[in-house]
């Protein structure tokens, strides 16, 4: 059974159709890159998979381990092993990063029939993962993402992913706003988490990230559809020729206007 099967998926925001028939199969352990210009529907796809309410699915299906994913609430998707690394991680003043992550980990563990961790066991559990992401203990005690730099926010996302150990990680433009050192650190974290049981969907505008997180497959999204799929060499072709080389306008929002 494939891990994720997307079949002819259509989705709208308000009146506007953004996804116009996407089909994609992801098997355990595979890393799929979704590339595309602004406005092509990349982030919408990531949001639909994670259960963001903003989007309305108007057609098609998504199955996750054979189960209808679209009928699950976002929290149930997370408990089933889906993780979305946000393009814009949300600042939540008043909730400590540690409290938040411990609550998240424990709800997920509970749903899997595992024992909940107390504060001490939790700290032991996250210590290595903090080192992996070069996270300071003080970052754990601060409110979620509040006052974090752009790089710290993205590192915090991958740190959360390391703690929650998802089966399917969706990385939504994790490279945006990162300098090369921060990008390498984030990519290193992601690569450490690659495993034969864990699949990833890496959404990005730029090929740069894929130098560090080498995908098994690359899909080019344009106008709400996958217009081309291939191996990692497709990303290199895009790097050389740009989206225009595939006959796609660089910015669809502008092109539509």
């Amino acid at each position, binding site marked *: 059974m494939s891990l994720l099967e997307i079949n002819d998926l259509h989705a709208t925001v308000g009146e506007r159709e953004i996804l116009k028939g996407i089909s994609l199969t992801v098997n355990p352990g595979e890393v799929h890159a979704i590339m595309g210009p602004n406005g092509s529907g990349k982030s919408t796809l990531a949001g639909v998979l994670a259960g963001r309410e903003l989007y309305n699915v108007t057609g098609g299906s998504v199955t996750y381990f054979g189960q209808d994913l679209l009928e699950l609430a976002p*929290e149930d998707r997370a408990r089933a092993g889906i993780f979305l690394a946000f393009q814009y991680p*949300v600042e939540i003043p008043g909730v400590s990063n540690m409290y938040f992550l411990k609550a998240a980990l424990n709800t997920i563990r509970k749903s899997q029939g595992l024992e909940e961790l107390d504060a001490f066991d939790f700290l032991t559990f996250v210590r290595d993962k903090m080192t992996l992401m070069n996270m300071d203990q003080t970052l754990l005690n601060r409110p979620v993402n509040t006052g974090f730099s752009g790089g710290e926010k993205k590192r915090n996302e991958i740190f959360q992913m390391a703690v929650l150990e998802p089966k399917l990680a969706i990385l939504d433009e994790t490279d945006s706003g990162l300098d090369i050192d921060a990008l390498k650190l984030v990519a290193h974290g992601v690569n450490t988490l690659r495993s034969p049981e864990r699949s990833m969907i890496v959404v990005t505008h730029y090929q740069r990230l894929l130098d560090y997180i080498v995908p098994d497959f690359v899909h080019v999204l344009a106008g709400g559809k996958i217009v081309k799929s291939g191996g990692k060499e497709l990303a290199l072709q895009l790097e050389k020729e740009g989206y225009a080389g595939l006959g796609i306008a660089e910015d669809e929002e502008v092109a539509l206007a």
Partner: protein
Amino acid sequence: MSAVAEQTGQWLAEFTKQDAVAPWMQELRAAGFARFAELGFPNTHNEEWRFTNVAPIARAQFAHVASIPHVTDAPVAADPALAEQYLGKVASFGEHAFLALNTAFLKDLVVIHVPRGTVIEKPIRIDYTAADGTHVAPRALIIVGADAHCTIVESYSGTGKYFTNAVTEIVAGDRSVVDHYKVQREDPSAFHVATLQAQLGRSATFSTHSIALGGAIVRNEANVVLSEGTDATVNGLYIVNGTQHVDNHTVIDHAKPHGTSHEMYKGILDDKSAAVFNGRIIVRKDAQKTDSKQTNKNLVLSDDAVIDTKPELQILADDVRCTHGATIGQLDAESLFYLQSRGIGKQQARSLLTYAFAQDVIDRIQVPDLREQLEKYLFEKFHEVARA
């Protein structure tokens, strides 16, 4: 009988029933009652009471009983002459019917005197408890000498339908440091009106934190008058549900130059509750170089809750910095989704965000056991809401 006389009739009976006190206090009582009889209870035509209808208080019958304050960790007994010297000087009733009514029932005052230069580390606690069917008029007078430091924690609670009409007067000396907390956890069917009046000395540092959780109809007033170089913090947190009504009125009066004031009131409203925030900041003509900041933020959890927020700036000086802002909002959808996307259930996510909204007021409480107690209380309260 006029409407006012009708209202005040039962109070006259209670007033005349009282045991005699010292002549000076007797005089104050009489003046207080006379003023109350003139004014009657305010109605909503009175601008100061526009959003708060106290008719249910005026209509109800209460038997007056002396409030029995429970005071712990107070410094040595204050000289009774101080009460006579200061009482009613800071909190003069003027147009204020409830203050006048409180004065009419003066007895068993809490008088705390922190002498000049004395530092009292341990918070002084004043606890009031009220019983069903009664009217209580707690009155505290706190005199803090120059360069003295102290912390005061007032708590109000009770059982049943009763009416607490409290007044707290604070005189803070030059360069003194005074932190005041008021924790109001009255019975959900009780009425609670409280006035804090503080006169702050030169370069004094003062803070007051009002935590309003209980009561059916609640009016909270915090009025502070600053001197030259005074630093005043006026914070509040009100959390209401059901049909609770809480009205916060504050006046920060910059009477002299170089004063600083910070005001932050936050409210959480659920069900059909209502809240009022009316924050007046006065900067007198002499009060140049005043720096004042006011914030009122409200989190509304239901469609039926009502909030009226009204900042009022009266600035008569020209070289000042005053900012104010008010927000009314719901839980942030993106924050909810973020928590849910990490496996946290929607209801738990809502309670977590509600708690987080109150957190920054709670964090500013410098009395550790009070802070922990409130954290625990709020956490459980919001958790209950989340489960419901």
